[in-house]
């Protein structure tokens, strides 16, 4: 049971990393393609990056979730 939970948590971390890397590659591609006016797209993608890290890696929900 304990090992199953650990494996599941580690797999979740891998998926989050895949999403972060994909977003970073998209950011890079957008910067290559859009020679001007890419700021709004960058902000949106950065915010998604930040939310993923805050929620899955930093467990921000612990702040308002009741611990048992």
């Amino acid at each position, binding site marked *: 049971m*304990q*090992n199953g*939970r*650990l494996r599941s*948590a*580690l797999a979740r*971390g*891998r998926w*989050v*990393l895949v999403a*972060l*890397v994909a977003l*970073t590659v998209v*950011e*890079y591609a*957008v*910067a290559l393609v*859009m*020679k*001007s*006016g*890419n*700021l709004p797209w*960058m902000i949106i*993608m*950065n915010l998604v*990056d*930040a939310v993923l*890290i*805050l929620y*899955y*890696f*930093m467990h*921000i929900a*612990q*702040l308002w979730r009741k*611990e048992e």
Partner: protein
Amino acid sequence: MAVQPEALARHRLSRMALNRMGLWLFLLSETFFFAALISSRYYLQGLARPETLNQALGLGITMVLLLSSLSAYRAETCIAHGDRKGFQQNLLATIALGLLFVVGVAMEWREAFVHFPPNTGFGSIFFTMTGIHAFHVLSGLLVLTLVYMLGRRGHFSAGSSWGVEGAVKYWHFVDVAWVFIYPTLYLVT
């Protein structure tokens, strides 16, 4: 007078909640600091950036830092589940990746001194932002190394890992800050 186990558990939980709140407030104050730095780039330079920026290096060190966030997460998750070996291995990987990031920044600086030195408009912003961020990375590495050494001596367990959690949260924050600094310096036009 015997202390009830339930009361002890409640005390421990409330202390943990206070620790977390304190750390988050500290991170919030750091967020304002980095937000001011990032806004200064747009205020002073607009959207202009030099063509001589090493884009491959910028992307490379960003990937390294993202990868280090995964290993830090894995270290925290492993110790929370009692896997001491996994905790130590992943923490060591995080430290190695952090050092690699610092080496990347040093390489970046060597090139930047040639193409846009600190006495130029973009150079002053570039060196300030990457320098302050690198200082945060170095302080994070120091804390992670301390946690690693304590872990090797048998500190931390599934029920008692606040030291690991705090250090790893700080490391993730350093990653979040870079997630915004990287496009601000390299990609935005």
